[in-house]
């Protein structure tokens, strides 16, 4: 009998015999991460102190911090952040759902894929920045236009990922489902969806990062609120470079948070993958 336990326990962990560590690995990871952040800010502060840059070129970190506190106190930052987050969320929902549905359709019907893909590639070749003004003219400069611009930015990579994911499903598993008399819905929920999930998560990660870019592009083109608008205001109107930095950091924070959420979701959803367990 193949019941030697060391066999699967060995595969499960895939780790070397534990060294006697002074600090646990996760603590080391967090500590090093924080240290890198501190080093970055310290380097920045030193650079400003050394070169004496005027605040409109490069403000000191503490100036940015003060601007951040001022902006949060008068509620301005939250208002603009909320607007951007709304656009990003709506853009993600629209972009991801359409890209996935079309991807499913194209993966199932090779004829339509051959027919439509050249046009999709052509559409992708037009920079979103170039068509963003057009969308603003057509849809006004409210939430709808920003949502569409954001969705367009992430549409193509997510679409390609969906097609690839659904195409990569093992033929024998399809045959098995047929032998078991699975209906169309069962085929989707029990085979196609879980099998495509790892690759869909890849698309989701790219999509989340692109959605932030999409929202800012939309706001640059025409908006009176949102973090993109705040950046525009800071850079062109008032030379308020500290506020510019605050807005940029806020965008970074949104992107990293979204990415982290997706990564967490992925880890939960793909527990069956050996590489997910090892992490």
């Amino acid at each position, binding site marked *: 009998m193949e019941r030697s336990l060391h066999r699967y326990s060995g595969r499960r962990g895939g780790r070397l015999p534990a060294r006697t560590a002074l600090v646990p690995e996760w603590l080391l990871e967090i500590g090093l991460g924080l240290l890198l952040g501190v080093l970055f800010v310290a380097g920045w502060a030193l650079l400003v102190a050394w070169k004496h840059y005027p605040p409109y070129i490069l403000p000191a970190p503490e100036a940015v911090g003060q601007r951040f506190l001022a902006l949060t106190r008068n509620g301005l930052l939250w208002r603009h952040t909320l607007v951007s987050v709304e656009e990003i969320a709506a853009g993600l929902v629209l972009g991801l759902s359409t890209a996935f549905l079309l991807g499913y359709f194209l993966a199932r019907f090779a004829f339509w894929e051959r027919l439509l893909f050249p046009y999709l590639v052509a559409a992708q070749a037009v920079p979103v920045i170039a068509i963003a003004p057009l969308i603003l003219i057509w849809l006004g400069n409210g939430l709808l236009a920003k949502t569409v611009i954001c969705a367009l930015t992430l549409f193509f990579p997510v679409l390609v990922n969906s097609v690839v994911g659904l195409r990569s499903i093992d033929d024998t598993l399809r*045959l098995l489902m047929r*032998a078991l*008399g699975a209906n169309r819905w069962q085929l989707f929920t029990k085979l196609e969806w879980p099998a495509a999930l790892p690759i869909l998560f890849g698309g989701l990660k790219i999509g989340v990062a692109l959605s932030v870019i999409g929202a800012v592009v939309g706001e640059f083109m025409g908006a009176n609120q949102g973090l993109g608008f705040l950046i525009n205001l800071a850079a062109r109107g008032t030379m308020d470079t500290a506020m510019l930095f605050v807005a940029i950091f806020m965008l970074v924070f949104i992107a990293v948070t979204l990415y982290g959420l997706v990564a967490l979701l992925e880890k939960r959803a793909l527990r069956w993958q050996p590489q997910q367990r090892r992490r």
Partner: protein
Amino acid sequence: MNAKRSILKQPFLQARHLCAFYDDTQPLRVLDDISLSIGETEFVAIVGPSGCGKTTLLQLLGGLQTPREGEVLLRGRPLAGPGRQIGYAFQVPALMPWRTVQENVLLPLELEGVPQPERVQRAAKWLDLVGLAEFGPMYPYQLSGGMQSRVALARALIQEPSLLLLDEPFAALDALTRERLNFELLRVWRYRTVAVLIVTHSIEEAVLLADRVLVMSPLPGRIVANIPVLLPRPRQRAHLTSAEFARLSGAVRMAIAQAMAPAMVGDVEKSTFQA
């Protein structure tokens, strides 16, 4: 008429004049006029050179393909398609990596709509029968190749089919594991509750397992020999080294060689004729 037919002893599974083609437009045949019948509790092996249409034949008999010519009858009725009376195991275990071993085994019941507690109970029973009782919560990647094959076997049997179709189920395994799994298969089948049709390219495997070995010719596949195996049951490892086992293996080997030879001679004749 119908009543009369049912009184007559019907073969359990019957194929009549089955032909299969490469595709709809070409006359090139994969299978040529295959007729066979299998008894209710019989264990039949099909042996043949690789690429002789064995997999196609199995898919036709299992209702995964519909024949363009000929027919397949199950208990005297034309086979409409796949169904729970037919269990399948493929050349690869074909386990879903995102499902645990237990979830893989109970998949057929889940699709059928069997309630959850019963599913789990039956999966546990079949996992126990294939010797994997404690492995239910594991994921397929944590199992060896031989264990994965057993999971696939448990999954094929969980609906308690009356016909089990095995398409080189142990082809990817090493010789030792394969032999052990052959005996496991015989142990599961020992009460003759299911008819088994196994496709293999191992002569020894065919003789060890089956009541009867059917030999197929190279393309287009035809059945060229029907060799009964009268070794006593339960089959044991001692049989593998017996004179009778060697004689039967020899007979199967000869039949395959004969099936290959005329095909080549035929080709030569044709080409000289054309020249």
